[in-house]
């Protein structure tokens, strides 16, 4: 798989000076930085890993030696409304029957953490932070038809489908400390990653307690001829349609010219 090698680097210099001014003790800070704010993916993009570097400063050396600092990094795509449908059988034919629409759902969600989430903190903390594929707030759109039981059922299916499409992923162990302060998080950018503004966030935990988070944003855009065609189809759809007709007429006509015997 040839994939875009997108390695994003931390702006270390500014962080270490800021860290030096902090009082040691209970003042651990976490920072992540990206060397670019825009990634252009081409049409041949088959998915890749995105490496994010970060720094943990003012860490307590004792706690650090015990390995009790944990970091969770996520990359969250733009929010969209999604509809989940279930097929039922009618006269032998499988038909989309019940459906539930969910509002403001991140189109993609990639998580990397130092360990399994349940080893980092109790579930309640992750629920409060809405951190993790199963803790994202899935807001069903009220339609008056669906029972609360089916809302629960569809709410459970949504992350499963997203995980299946590789649009959501959780990778425990993919945040690694490179030194006492520097860490690296490997997130996944799937082939079908949505374009738009993505947000990278880092969460710092100590002894199962959430300390603080930092975030930065990343714009994912598509590049290349294919994307220009896509844009034309959506932004100048009338012109695009007329051109499609024109192209068909010309192709048919050229074929006739090429093969005419007389």
């Amino acid at each position, binding site marked *: 798989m040839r994939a875009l090698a997108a390695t994003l680097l931390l702006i270390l210099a500014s962080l270490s000076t800021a860290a030096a001014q902090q009082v040691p003790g209970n003042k651990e800070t976490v920072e992540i930085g990206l060397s670019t704010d825009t990634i252009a993916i081409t*049409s041949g993009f088959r998915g890749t890993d995105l490496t994010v570097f970060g720094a943990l400063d003012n860490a307590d050396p004792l706690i650090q030696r015990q390995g009790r600092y944990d970091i969770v990094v996520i990359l969250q795509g733009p929010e969209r409304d999604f509809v989940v449908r279930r*097929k039922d059988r009618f006269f032998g034919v499988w038909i989309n029957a019940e459906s539930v629409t969910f509002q403001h759902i991140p189109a993609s969600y990639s998580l990397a953490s130092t360990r399994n989430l349940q080893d980092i903190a109790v579930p309640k903390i992750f629920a409060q932070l809405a951190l993790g594929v199963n803790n994202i707030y899935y807001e069903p759109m009220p339609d008056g038809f669906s029972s609360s039981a089916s809302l629960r059922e569809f709410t459970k*299916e949504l992350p499963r489908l997203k995980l299946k499409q590789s649009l959501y992923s959780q990778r425990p162990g993919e945040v690694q400390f490179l030194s006492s302060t520097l860490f690296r998080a490997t997130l996944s950018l799937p082939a079908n990653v949505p374009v738009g503004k993505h947000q990278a966030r880092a969460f710092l935990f100590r002894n199962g307690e959430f300390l603080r988070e930092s975030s930065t944003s990343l714009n994912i855009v598509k590049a290349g001829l294919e994307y220009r065609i896509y844009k034309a189809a959506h932004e100048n*759809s009338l012109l695009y*349609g007329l051109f499609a007709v024109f192209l068909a007429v010309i192709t*048919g*006509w050229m074929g*006739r010219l090429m093969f005419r015997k007389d």
Partner: protein
Amino acid sequence: MGSGSELGIYLPIAEISVNIFVLFGMGAAVGFLSGMFGVGGGFLITPLLIFYNIPPAVAVATGANQVIASSFTGALSHFKRGTLDVKLGTLLVIGGVAGAGIGIYVFVLLRELGQLDLIVSLLYVIFLSTIGGLMLLESVRSMRRTRAGQLASLKKPGQHNWVHRLPFKMRFRASKIYVSIIPILALGAAIGFLSSIMGVGGGFIMVPAMIYLLKVPTNVVIGTSLYQIVFVTAFTTVMQATTNQSVDIVLAFLLMSGGVIGAQYGTRIGQKLRGEQLRALLATLVLAVGLRLAIELFVTPDDLYSIAIALAAPGAS
């Protein structure tokens, strides 16, 4: 699916990577068949695209686009030869545009309801099995007749039917008929509707309907049908592009260029090898495609649940 990345091309609207040669070959094969049998081929292209994992909405819209290329040259040569009834064709176009407009509206509605894929498949199963079945029956019958030493007679004597009792009659000089415009507009509308929902030209329905219902002489039937198909599929393409953004120009171009080349060879072979056996072969192929689509409707899907971006919900502003 093969991951031959070197031959892969990304379709901007279908949003998947496909193999150039598979699509070109698909266009060529269908073009060959359409040249050989004088059919548009849209009714084979769309299901084949669906089998190749192209989203049905894109397959239908692009199918209509592709049909223009194969019909345009045909219509042009019929026009030059004078085997085209422009007046009759224009009335069919007017009906067709209305039908296609309704079709697009239904298409959007079905897409929002998440039932588009099902309805497209169902329509194809019904049409392919009916047309394939009739063709097979007809070719077997004429094979028997040939064996019995009789001459195959296609045209029935011009008996008047209920169609000729309808009002608003109009005279069509090129076709030498005097007939009500109601069945003409209705036929045009039905074809236009199918064109927008199924991505077909509709010649396979239009030609028999014109012969048996309107009693149009066979020499102007093909030309007039092609004339209507060009305008209605062009209208459908523009409508699909503006309302659903589902016309994939790259996909259409691959299919068209394959189709145009295939059609040339098909026409040559078809002129040499005209026969009931060939027609029986096409009928079997049509039936097989229909059967394949039908099986997919009945087989339990791997995953009962599916997820899609919510389109503008009806009623919500």
